[in-house]
């Protein structure tokens, strides 16, 4: 089934290459292209693991191949640089024809295409790609994860691969983590693509279907992972069952309101995922759900009674809070108490209290609302409404709601008007979605600990691309302090010291809440600083962009201002470059590395330091309690105590990584199980 070039839609004639000639388009070979879902049996999985190991062993070989392509492309640069504008266009047309004639990319064609795009980029934008960027692009075309250090110019790298693939007739989706980046990158690269005869579309929030369809109809589409997945999901709803290729095409011929006309995408062909670890791994824990309003399930009095009963229960006799998994577990005595309380309070008039399952579900939701979901951490109140805060990014998600009546329960707890319950229309996971691309590739700064998962889940091998210049970042040893207060004292002292020297400082936190605390401490210490609100817009990018200036202090979460280079101000390099201080361990070591990668870009000097405490949220899932850990640290003395603390936090981090890895595996597994169980309901969306 891997003949992606033949399947590619939008096989344009040569005339289409002129920037203005996008009017005529041949009908697509496939009405809606996507890869058939993998039916992975246990044997396949085992074999995939073995193949994955072998592939890791052969990664060096692949990297050599990409280096050869890059060398070949560079070898042509002088010759191509000498070409006239018209001659260059002719060469581009020639390579377009060559690429389209084949189903697979030949190394020689890739080198030629890269050399031409590079030259065009140089003429249009004045930026010519480095060798390592061409290596990375070759890896992308080959369907791999290119591991490129932060600051190596991933946006520019993507243009090579996206350009070459688009020339070959594939519809390319360049997936970024937020709207701002999508728009910025698209606009930045639009002149280059236009010069190549390629159209660029951008998907933004609040676009309607026709607009989106138009954007997706372009050769290259910049979009966020969320928009893309949801658009695909909406397409699947529109397509429904009985959506075979032939049926759709026939329908398109005779029916006026064909399903094809309601679609947004042209199918899935080739995707380049920026920040692949964040999109494909971290966000893969949350399923995507499209829902529609459906009348309220339970009235206020039922919710009120649930809350009352929940208030009457006590932990740990009646229920246990499993913080690590964010759930409530009722004990057997607890179940009995619920039954008694429900009996006494509601003498049988409401059916909700008679059924054991319903009853316990309600009380569990009430307990969750009371003990697991906290205001200003998991949600905020805005205009008398409960608005969810994304735990990953710290952004507010106004159109999201919790399922199974939990949202109403939280609303009731906060005394808001109850919103209507919503019923699911379609459900999707990133794992399932991205696996449907016949050709998937990604770029990321770090794949530490997840390379195996990239392979087993997405069949994506990782290739490490060398840096353009050697890394000059210094890593200071982690400091572990016994508690939060001591940590902040140390952090402010350190920042004050650096600030006095004029060093720019970036404080990396884990959550928006921690950012707020950091800000409070810094204000108290009289240090001028800027806090990023994770709004992910142009202003935020501007702040991040300024973070490298003399004497700047910036507080940001890991996700804030991602994808924006922090350029050093004049004279900063001599002062040691940007100093990054991490005040909390992130959920995964990989994300720590990304934070570190904020400094020391492209061979500039930089410094990374972690000042942590045993009050770190990660310690929740640690091996031993905080009190004990503190005592042991004191007992061991300053030197060994530090080492002990570091190891303890690392261990807690590894546990969290493991937990999240398992949650993703569970989600994928249950997704597959669902498919089997729901076989009678036709194909999954």
């Amino acid at each position, binding site marked *: 089934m891997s003949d992606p070039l033949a399947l590619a839609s939008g096989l344009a004639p040569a005339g289409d290459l002129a920037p203005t000639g996008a009017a005529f388009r041949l009908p697509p070979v496939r009405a809606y292209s996507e890869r058939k879902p993998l039916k992975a049996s246990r044997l396949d999985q085992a074999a995939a693991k073995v193949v994955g190991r072998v592939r890791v062993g052969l990664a060096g070989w692949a990297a050599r191949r990409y280096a050869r392509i890059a060398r070949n492309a560079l070898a042509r640069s002088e010759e191509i640089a000498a070409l006239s504008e018209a001659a260059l266009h002719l060469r581009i047309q020639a390579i377009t024809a060559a690429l389209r004639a084949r189903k697979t990319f030949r190394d020689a064609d890739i080198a030629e295409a890269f050399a031409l795009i590079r030259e065009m980029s140089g003429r249009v934008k004045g930026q010519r790609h480095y060798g390592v960027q061409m290596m990375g692009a070759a890896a992308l075309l080959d369907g791999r994860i290119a591991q490129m250090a932060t600051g190596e110019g991933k946006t520019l790298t993507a243009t090579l691969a996206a350009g070459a693939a688009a020339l070959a007739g594939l519809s390319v989706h360049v997936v970024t983590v937020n709207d701002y980046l999508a728009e910025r990158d698209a606009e930045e690269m639009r002149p280059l693509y236009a010069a190549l005869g390629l159209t660029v579309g951008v998907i933004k929030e609040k676009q309607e279907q026709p607009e989106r369809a138009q954007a997706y109809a372009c050769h290259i589409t910049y979009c966020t992972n969320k928009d893309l997945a949801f658009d695909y999901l909406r397409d699947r709803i529109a397509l429904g069952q009985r959506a075979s290729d032939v049926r759709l095409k026939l329908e398109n011929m005779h029916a006026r309101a064909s399903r094809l006309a309601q679609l947004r995408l042209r199918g899935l062909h080739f995707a380049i995922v920026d920040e692949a670890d964040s999109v494909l791994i971290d966000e893969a824990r949350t399923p995507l759900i499209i829902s529609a309003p459906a009348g309220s399930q339970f009235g206020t009095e039922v919710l009120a009674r649930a809350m009352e009963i929940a208030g009457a229960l006590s932990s740990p006799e009646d229920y246990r809070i499993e913080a690590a998994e964010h759930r409530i577990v009722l004990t057997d005595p607890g179940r009995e108490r619920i039954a008694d309380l429900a009996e006494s309070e509601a003498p049988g008039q409401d059916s909700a209290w008679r059924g054991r*399952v*319903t009853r316990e579900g309600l009380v569990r939701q009430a307990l969750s609302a009371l003990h697991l979901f906290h205001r200003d951490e998991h949600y905020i109140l805005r205009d008398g409404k409960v608005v969810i805060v994304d735990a990953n990014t710290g952004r507010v998600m106004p159109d999201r709601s919790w399922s199974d009546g939990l949202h109403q329960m939280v609303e009731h707890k906060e005394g808001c008007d109850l919103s209507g319950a919503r019923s699911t229309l379609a459900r999707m996971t990133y794992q399932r979605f991205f696996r449907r691309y016949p050709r998937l590739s990604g770029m990321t700064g770090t794949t530490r600990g997840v390379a195996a998962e990239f392979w087993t889940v997405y069949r994506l091998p990782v290739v490490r691309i060398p840096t353009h210049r050697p890394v000059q970042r210094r890593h200071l040893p982690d400091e572990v302090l016994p508690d939060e207060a001591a940590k902040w004292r140390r952090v402010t002292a350190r920042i004050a010291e650096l600030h006095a020297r004029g060093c720019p400082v970036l404080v990396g936190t884990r959550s928006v809440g921690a950012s707020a605390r950091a800000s409070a401490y810094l204000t108290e210490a009289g240090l001028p600083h800027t806090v990023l609100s994770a709004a992910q817009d142009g202003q935020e990018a501007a702040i991040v962009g300024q973070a490298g200036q003399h004497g700047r202090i910036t507080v940001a979460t890991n996700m804030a201002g991602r994808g924006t280079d922090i350029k050093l101000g004049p004279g900063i390099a001599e002062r040691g470059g940007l100093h990054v201080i991490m005040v909390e361990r992130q959920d995964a070591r990989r994300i720590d590395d990304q934070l570190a990668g904020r400094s020391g870009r492209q061979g500039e000097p930089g410094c990374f330091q972690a000042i942590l405490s045993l009050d770190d949220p990660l310690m929740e899932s640690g091996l031993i309690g905080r009190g004990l850990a503190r005592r042991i640290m004191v007992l061991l003395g300053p030197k060994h105590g530090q080492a002990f603390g570091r190891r303890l936090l690392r261990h807690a981090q590894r546990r969290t990584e493991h937990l999240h890895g398992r949650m993703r595996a569970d989600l994928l597994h249950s997704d597959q199980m669902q498919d089997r169980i729901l076989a009678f309901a036709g194909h999954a969306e």
Partner: protein
Amino acid sequence: MSQSLFSQSWYRVAPLRPRLRRHAEIHRQSFRGEVWYVLQDHQTGRFHRLSPAANLILCLMDGRRTLQEVWEAAARRNEDDPPTQDDTIRLISQLHGSDLLQGDLPPDLAELAERSESTARRTLIARVKNPLALRFPLFDPDPVLDRLAPLFRPLFSIWGFAVWLAVVVTGLVVAALHAGELTGDVAGQMLSAQNVALMMALYPVIKALHEAGHACAAKAWGGEVHEVGVMLLVLFPAPYVDASTSAAFPSKWQRMMVAAAGIFVELFLAGLAAIVWATAEPGLVRAAAFNVMVIGSVSTLLFNGNPLLRFDGYYIFADLIEIPNLGSRANRYVFYLIERYVLTIEGATSPVTAAGERPWLFVYAVAAFVYRTTVSIAIASFIATQYFVFGVLLALLALFGTVVSPLVKGLKFILTDPKLHRRRGRAVLLTSAAAGAAFALLFVVPLPYTTMAQGVVWAPDDTQIRTGTDGILTTLLVEPGRDAQAGEALAKLEDPSLDSRVAVLEAQLVELRLRYDAARLGDRVQAQILQEQIGSTQEILRVYRERQAALTVRAAQGGRLIVPGAVDLPGRYLRRGERIGYVLTADDPVVRVVVPQTDVDLIRSRTQGVAARLAERPEAVRAGSILREVPGAQQEIPSLALATQGGGTIAVDASNPQKPVALQSIFVFDVQLAGGLPFNVLGERVYVRFDHGAEPIAWRALRSLRQVFLSQFRV
């Protein structure tokens, strides 16, 4: 696992409008006072048990209502305990998996193909996994049975039962009357080569009638029988019949009767055979009748009637106690108990659906497991002794199925099952503790190690008093039980012919001497002859005189005189060398112990103490020590009391009537008991225990396994 009324994936099934396919039929049954519905799939012959709630959902699915409407209606009907959406999805999914649903969607051919492939694969794997019960279907007997129905239907009535009962009771009475005769030669008759051949010929016939019984019973109450075939049960062909449609019968007695019909048939045959056996003359007919009796009663009740094996008895039992699917639910229940109480998993679901099932499930699971494991290992080792390579392979397979595969499954559960999340530490700890304890018990903890053997009280040969010549014992000169001095006369024998012979010889000698004196001066030749005759006669006379002297039996050594049966002795004619009794000192009687060769090495090298109990006084334990041993193996056994016929443990070659000769080499030890033995127990059986100190069980098992391999497989 937290249960919720709503399901995340409900949206995918809510708009479907499925209905049950036409070849499915629902029957109402009651188990333990609760109503259940049994869904019969006429196409595959499978059955699905449905709760009333599930049945309601099924009945509401008419192809016009959407599942959403069906579920809402079902939830309204069961307000107290509405079916959850997940339950509903699971039900629909199971029905779909059995091809019982017809929906408004076109069938997904790829999915169908995949499912049929996986079914085929599972069947194959089941066959490979269980080569001891392969099934080969032959034909569909339903039309034949339909035609024959008028013939056998009357049998399944009160009159049929009366006839059956009469025959079986008569057979029983006959058998009871001939009980001695019957039990006396069972072993001898059954195991002779001739009889085995006869049995092999009869067995398939009886089993075919047995299966015919099932088929007829199923047909008699309106069931269908669509499969007859041959099953290789432990490589031995046996017919089988698929009477599973009886599961749809509403009355449990009818269901039980179908399952029991085979046993009824065999018992009937056994009853008839008993009558024939009792009346027939010895010959082939009688032998055949005897075999039918044994197969039809003993073997049927032991195997078919045994609820612990998955034969007829199991189904009868399950129906009797009204716990359908007893075997697998029993296993699940034990597993649930472990999950719930040992591993403390809160979400564990119990398979118990009715009151009073718990003890049954628990006891059945444990008993069946122990029984099945024992039987399958016994079968495997039996086959292994017959055909080495094949047998060892089968034994390994049996071992794999009963020991290794559950262990691997358990280990996998402990290490990877998501249910154990957050309990895994505890689970691993408990499992390793249990495994460690088992290991310690087997390999580390030394347990008392002994060998048991039998012997007899034995007097050494030099203490026996034997007659020196033939004669009638007239008197015992020393009272038995009294001490005698060495050389003292103990008994007097009488041989009148000997006295007269001596008198004749003396007279002859006198005559010869006189004739010699007369001839000496005259005829020198004659004199010479006579002298020779005198010499010869004197010699003969000396011999007779010695015999005469031997008529007085004397003690060779001092000690107590023991004469077994002393009262009967005077007046008896004794041949030369016959034993009169013993002259024993207190140390003389020993216990002569006979041990098979497998135990010899242990007794020789590791005996740390010997204890013995006399058969007449088993309560008294007496210490002893090995006095001497016969260095070589021998076949003769010292006393018949030690042979199996005499109640001992040594198998004796029955084909040698002269002397008791053991089938396998035996070794003889003499054990001296501290404090000596009373003289009145000579020849009595003694139970002897050789103590080898202590040793962990596993090492012993390894030793005996090695011996088994050496002796059975010569490897």
